[in-house]
């Protein structure tokens, strides 16, 4: 969540009520009967018994019986719960502002009566932007959750929780209370530890099917464009403020030379270009065996606040690190804006909760179902030694696929800097050398004139149709090319504005 330029004009202008992919349908779910005026959804999951669970900004948690369409209030009084996990039909784990909390119904009357602190061993300056995002649970029984930084939109409060650290206070987004801007691991044996550093507004954690942990972050200071990170212990992901809590880091983090910080930082496995892909990415949800959602098992979904969009992410390991591509997937009205939380329903359809909290977004709950008909989508985009290999869900019509004009590639990077966001730097078209199409028509290999490491490569494929005459549903795809398959040059850090021509716009 962030300061965001409204995209109202474009959205209001498009009145066609259809997703880009006609094989998916969106259904509105009636909102929970909250006593309060808004029905923003800040947490969403399913109980083992199949009931839907939602958390509202008002601190209420409701259960919804999908068949009878009946809502029931389970708990109330929580402080901005921004994520929920169901351990059983009567036991939830919730991230609320002050805590990771176990919420239980002990007497079996259907309403929670016990609110136990799992951990509150982190700080709060009382700044509104110190959100506590999305608990996830790994296979070993450890919890992870993400602490937002404080915003320069306000200061700190009169009494703060946890040792105040003035080194973390300066800067646009600050971290004056313990571990703001960190992802926290709460271990099975009861320790609360800062697991990774350098996060700004990490509104969404999630595992892939292999157990890798991911978190999104939102464009802003130190974050040139929104990102997806592969979270690993003790790594620093770029936003300076939380370094105030990193052992061995001295001085005021925001005053450190950007080049020094750039050397410390781990690159994002996905960059979501601001304005065209996502401005505020949210939760990460793996397309797993429970999903009935098309031929994308193993890939990730990521919500986006500003547009009616859910993004699909495909990753591969290159040079020992994950990187890959993102593509709009469930895109356009009638999907609402503010897609914040997602979960798979018992029938394998996707439930989406929408929110806004004064930023761009929406409110309500929607169900996205797959018709079981094969969509025409980019199934995968992988790096090759000289370019990219595209795999499609259906055979492509080669007449269009082999036309170089239909593959207008470009590349650029976002700077690493203290200032808010970043322009696209060093942006230029990339010429195509050769196109080859596999015999079955499912794969297209694009050889580029140059593959530039540490640059984002994107293409908006034109005129492509399947062999049955269907248009490609989503044609804009972005590959975050950090490493090459071999001979990757060192990270150029990209802390300064390129001296080359200012890019077209």
């Amino acid at each position, binding site marked *: 969540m962030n300061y965001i330029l409204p995209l109202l004009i474009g959205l209001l202008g498009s009145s066609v009520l259809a997703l880009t992919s006609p094989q998916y349908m969106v259904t509105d779910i009636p909102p929970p009967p909250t006593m309060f005026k808004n029905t923003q959804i800040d947490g969403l999951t399913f109980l083992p018994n199949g009931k839907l669970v939602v958390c509202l900004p008002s601190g209420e948690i409701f259960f919804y019986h999908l068949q009878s369409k009946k809502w029931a209030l389970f708990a109330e009084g929580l402080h901005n719960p921004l994520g929920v996990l169901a351990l059983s039909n009567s036991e939830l784990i919730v991230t609320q502002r002050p805590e990771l909390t176990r919420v239980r119904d002990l007497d079996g009357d259907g309403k929670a009566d016990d609110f136990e602190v799992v951990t509150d061993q982190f700080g*709060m300056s009382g*700044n509104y932007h110190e959100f506590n995002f999305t608990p996830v649970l790994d296979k070993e029984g450890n919890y992870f959750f993400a602490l937002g930084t404080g915003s320069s939109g306000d200061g700190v409060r009169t009494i703060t929780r946890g040792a105040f650290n003035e080194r973390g206070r300066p800067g646009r987004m600050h971290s004056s209370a313990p571990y703001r801007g960190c992802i926290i691991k709460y271990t099975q044996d009861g320790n609360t530890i800062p697991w990774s550093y350098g996060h700004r507004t990490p509104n969404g954690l999630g595992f892939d099917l292999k157990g890798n942990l991911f978190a999104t972050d939102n464009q802003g200071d130190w974050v040139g464009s929104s990102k997806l990170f592969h979270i690993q212990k003790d790594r620093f992901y770029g936003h300076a403020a939380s370094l105030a809590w990193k052992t061995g880091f001295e001085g005021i983090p925001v005053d450190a030379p950007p080049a020094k910080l750039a050397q410390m930082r781990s690159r994002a496995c996905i960059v979501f270009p601001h304005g065209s892909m996502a401005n505020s990415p949210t939760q990460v949800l793996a397309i797993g065996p429970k999903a009935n959602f098309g031929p994308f098992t193993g890939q990730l979904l990521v919500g986006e606040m500003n547009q009616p969009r859910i993004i699909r992410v495909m990753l591969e390991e290159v040079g020992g690190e994950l990187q890959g591509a993102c593509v709009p997937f469930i895109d356009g009205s009638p999907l609402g804006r503010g897609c914040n939380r997602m979960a798979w329903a018992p029938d394998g359809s996707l439930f989406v909760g929408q929110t806004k909290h004064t930023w761009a977004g929406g409110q309500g709950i929607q169900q996205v179902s797959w018709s079981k008909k094969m969509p025409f989508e980019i199934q995968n985009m992988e790096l090759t030694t000289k370019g990219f290999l595209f795999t499609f869900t259906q055979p492509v019509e080669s007449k269009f696929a082999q036309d170089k004009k239909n593959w207008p590639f470009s590349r650029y990077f976002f700077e690493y800097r203290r200032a808010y966001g970043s322009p696209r730097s060093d942006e230029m078209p990339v010429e195509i050398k050769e196109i080859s199409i596999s015999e079955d028509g499912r794969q297209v290999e694009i050889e580029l004139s140059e593959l530039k490491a540490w640059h984002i490569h994107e293409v908006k494929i034109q005129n492509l149709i399947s062999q049955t005459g269907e248009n490609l549903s989503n044609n804009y795809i972005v590959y975050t090319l950090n490493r090459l398959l071999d001979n990757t040059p060192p990270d150029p850090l990209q802390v300064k504005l390129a001296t080359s021509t200012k890019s077209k716009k």
Partner: protein
Amino acid sequence: MKKFLLPIVLGFSGLLLGESKEAILKKGEALYNGAGSCVACHMKDGKGQKGSVPTLAQSDWLKNGTERSIAIALRGLAGPVKVNGKNFYSAMPPQLLMDDEKLAHILSYVNQAWGNKERLVTEEEVAKARKSLPISVYTPQTLLKQFPFDKKLSRKNGTFTPTYDDLITTIIQPIVYRTFMPGASPAAFAVALPGNHYFCWDAGECRLRYVWTKGGFIRSNQSHWSSNGKPVAQFNGTPYYRARTSLLQNESFDDLSKTNLKQPIYDTSEAKDFPILIEGINRKPVFLGYRLVDQYPQFRYSLGKHIITEMIRVNQESTGVERTFTISPPAQTSFHLTPSEEASISCSQGTLNKDGTLRLNQEESAQFSIVINPKEESK
């Protein structure tokens, strides 16, 4: 209804009534300030109470509005009103015990006190209104339909649409909110008890911060939730009990509501002056959670190896609150309370010193309760 629009010349009315202006105002002042009279809510300085009772001092509602004032005094007014641009929620009861003369004196006093410059009110005006006005209590809508504002004088006045917060008037079940409260760490609770006592409990330091009863429960939670979470809850009225520490003395709640500081007054990491001292334990309290017992939150925290529970309910007489504690395992304990002019404190066990220190032996500490009662406002 338009009969009294002509301003009555003050001297003339005084002559007519056979009383001097000074005498009228003096009597009015005495009645206004009488025990249980106007002063109880509108206060001696006429400024009312923030959020609940509107100001009379330089109120725009009084301007050219004497007929309206008479109507409010006689019939009462129920519903949210906006006065001088600010919202108020309490209802004004009809003044059934005041006869025409007394009401005329009071209204005359109000019209002339605290910088107000309205005319005197006659007994005849009140008598006539008493006969002719509709019998039911006014709502802001019915009142303003009958006695509209002079638009030139009253731009910031009228009524407003109440939010959920405004509608919480009589508490029948405990309400437990975790939200930002003034004068507490960001990990605070706001709890409303049946019997309309309210308290702020701070999970950041495992302690009761303050208790209040007048003016209703917290406000602005709705905007706290709907927005990005910046607003700190507000409440009307003044706590009758405030736990003091060396770090937190008499700061105003307005000051304590500030959110834009460079650094805090203090942070909770040391839990300085934690009120419960158990012999041999030199540890900070750790918040463990709460359980709803008959909907009442029972807070649970640890101090070293000791588990403490605390439940706060309205006392049997419904005059104040009773805090019930258990300490397990029990141990010799001292408990620091904050005595004040506003409340009396009593304890079921142990000895309570004048300075507010409650001493409990091991046996007594297993379960004990503390009653905090607001004192009647003395004159």
